[in-house]
């Protein structure tokens, strides 16, 4: 059943994302074209150059905003509105619906991020890009001489944090929507309210946790540059691991909470 759910979920969501990616790609190509074919002192040409650059910048923002909106919209429309009458009468467990929707959304968001970086790469390609990469790799090499294993750990932790963060946000919004449907009317408003309420509660809890556990390393304030640099990355890594573990725990909690609400308290009107 999971496989079939995935198949239909990708089919249903793909048409939006693929359209968005194609538009983004076309705009990128036009931009590239205008950048390469520079016609000096032509106002008409530079006008178009600017317009397309503006489109590109807008599209960069839009790809992330639209992706996030689509995640929430799909869950709400497909499960909480009329289509929910079909989805919830399929012989499928509630948990499977949530997992399939969350994983599919995760894949699209990661893909959006990749497309975003790819587009920028296409634009700057040929304009000192090789230099940029060699500077980057040199920078990382030098850093790793300083920090060694700590640096690899740092990169690993923050890539994981980014990926888990995507799932965390998806499941937090699902949980908020499932809380919102408990209210008979004004479900969208209630869902948005629930989302901010969850944020507020969690921020306060973690704010206090960090104050009381006092994780700041006193070495951060010493004068010795090497020691200071070491303790900064050490501090960032400890902080990163703690918040990574917390994100994983909370993501799992959001999943089970959403499942519980939609199993025990489903109310389609």
């Amino acid at each position: 059943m999971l496989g079939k759910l995935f198949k239909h979920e990708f089919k249903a969501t793909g048409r939006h994302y693929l359209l968005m990616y194609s538009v983004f790609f076309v705009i990128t190509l036009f931009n590239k074209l205008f950048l390469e074919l520079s016609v000096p002192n032509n106002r008409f040409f530079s006008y178009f150059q600017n317009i397309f650059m503006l489109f590109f910048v807008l599209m960069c923002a839009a790809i992330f905003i639209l992706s996030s909106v689509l995640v929430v919209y799909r869950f709400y429309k497909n499960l909480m509105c009329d289509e929910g009458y079909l989805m919830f009468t399929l012989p499928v467990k509630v948990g499977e619906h949530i997992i399939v929707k969350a994983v599919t959304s995760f894949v699209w968001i990661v893909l959006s991020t990749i497309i975003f970086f790819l587009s920028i790469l296409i634009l700057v390609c040929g304009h000192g890009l090789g230099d940029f990469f060699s500077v980057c790799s040199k920078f990382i090499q030098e850093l790793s001489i300083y920090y060694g294993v700590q640096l690899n750990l740092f990169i690993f932790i923050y890539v994981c944090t980014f990926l888990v963060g995507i799932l965390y946000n998806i499941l937090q919004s699902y949980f908020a929507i499932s809380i919102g449907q408990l209210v008979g009317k004004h479900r969208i408003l209630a869902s948005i309210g629930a989302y901010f309420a969850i944020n507020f509660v969690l921020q306060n809890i973690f704010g206090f946790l960090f104050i009381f556990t006092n994780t700041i390393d006193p070495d951060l304030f010493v004068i010795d540059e090497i020691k200071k640099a070491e303790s900064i990355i050490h501090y960032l890594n400890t902080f990163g691991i703690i918040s990574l573990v917390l994100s994983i725990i909370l993501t799992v909690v959001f999943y089970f909470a959403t499942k519980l609400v939609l199993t025990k308290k489903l109310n389609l009107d």
Partner: protein
Amino acid sequence: MSPILECRNLSKKYGYKEALSGIDLSVERGRIVGLLGPNGSGKSTLIKLSNGLLTPTNGELIINNMPVGPETKKIVSYLPERTYLNNWMKVCDIIDFFADFYENFDKNKAYEMLKRLNINAKDRLKTMSKGTKEKVQLILVMSRQADLYLLDEPIGGVDPAARDYILNTIISNYNPDGTIIISTHLISDIEQILDDIIFIQNGTIVKTASVDDIRSQEGKSVDALFREVFRC
């Protein structure tokens, strides 16, 4: 044989409003049952509870000896009173969807019925009228060999000529060992196909009887009895 559907002290409240108040009900297998009552009597609530779209406030609902869940959804075919089909799919896509998820879905039967109703399987649902969409939905629901069909207002939105066709579709396509529960307030239209009736009002069961008994004992049609029981 055990009943296909059983309610024990089943209640559902929406806030303070009680939609169903502690009903006990048992529906046998192989019957066509009319769930009849005025608007807002609790018909849809009972059907939605049987599908797991709502959760009971109190009491139990048992289908084929199981509580409502994925296992009961396999054997229940449900026609809601609204359109649950999305707009972007073609009819053939939604048929594939049903065939993927319901083992008891008969694709050939669905295509046969579409053909008889002159509905093109390549048409997008977006381009269809509300009535045509309702027909597609009914075809999907009746193409399953289910143990229990729950049809919520199946003839509410279509013209009288189409009503006859729909009733025909229902009685000629259902699994004969299965049970059909039809909720409606258009009694005279469906009276001829019913075996049993359940009268429901203000969230309580007012009367359950077989149609033969009503005719022989009370000497009335179901329609006449309904008007008498629910006189305003």
